[in-house]
């Protein structure tokens, strides 16, 4: 079952995950599980972050793990429309230079 803060848009080739609200220690494990699950069933996963009000380090770590899994398995993983807060956290850890951000 998909948690409330994640919406799916899935085709044969690609899955887009729309994340909304706050991502923190209370729900980042669900985000991680959903990202890794999506990467196992499609070749490309996009995580749309436009609706994210706040994300903590555990949420960012879930996406880092997704990227690592995608790179190891010949799949694509990208982030789209990160909010200003998400962007500034990615920049602080210099992850803006690691993720494919659209």
């Amino acid at each position: 079952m998909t948690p409330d803060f994640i919406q799916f848009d899935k085709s044969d080739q690609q899955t887009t995950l729309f994340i909304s609200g706050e991502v923190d220690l209370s729900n980042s494990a669900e985000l991680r599980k959903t990202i890794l699950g999506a990467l196992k069933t499609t070749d490309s996963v996009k995580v749309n972050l436009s609706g994210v009000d706040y994300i903590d380090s555990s949420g960012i770590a879930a996406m880092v793990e997704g990227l690592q899994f995608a790179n190891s398995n010949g799949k694509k993983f990208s982030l789209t429309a990160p909010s200003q807060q998400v962007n500034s956290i990615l920049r602080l850890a210099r992850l803006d230079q690691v993720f494919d951000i659209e």
Partner: protein
Amino acid sequence: MTTDNHTPETVISVKQLVTHYGMRKILDGVDMDVKRGEIRVIMGGSGSGKSTLLWHILGLYEPTKGEIELLGQNIHQINFNDNLKLKQNIGVSFQSGALFSSMTVGENVALPLREFTDLDENTIRIISRMKLEVVNLGGFHKLMPAQLSGGMIKRAALARAIVMDPKLLFFDEPSAGLDPVVASEIDDLILSLRDTMGMSMVVVTHELDSAFKIADKITVLDNGKNLITGTVEEIQQSDNKRVMDLLQRRSRHDKLNPSEYLKRLTQENYTLS
């Protein structure tokens, strides 16, 4: 407490704090309010009470009188579970670094995550290494603290202090003993964390350049009392002689009490009153 939309929430409230070491009064009715997203610098000469104030805010010492609230909770009346949650929202970077010498840098940084969360090991590894990247220690996770320089130890301690993404961050002399370039890097990091994560911070320091660079407000303590609190400009323009002494690093010019001074030098059982 004002809670309208235009006034930031008070996240640290100190009211009429009084404390003694033995007979000696160290803090004498200190008040301090810190707002969300604010960097408050506490300054003062040696023995002014600035570190003592910090230890009280952290709940390490019991005051003689007064109240302290962190994130709206009175730290002396808080129950065990709420206190545990509160501690997860507090990061502390001690003057010495206080890293465990028997653990690697990575293990030191990861420690609060292992202590307070049930995150899996992969996530803990990623978060702790990400924090080391933030403090410019990327790839240093396998080193032991003894293999780090003084500046690197302070940065590693900062990585550990922020590993839980705390709402409140406390620093005791973050740039003491560091060369100016490294000290300036620490200041930049403090500002970045405020701007990026919205953290509220209390920084105890005697470094004027650092204080003026990072502070939203400065509280100057003198003999355990709040001498003045104001913005950097207000502090710099203050005509209070003691504040001017501090800024100009001049020695104190208190009028000497000759008989009291003689007692201090000669009486075997002399104690400060």
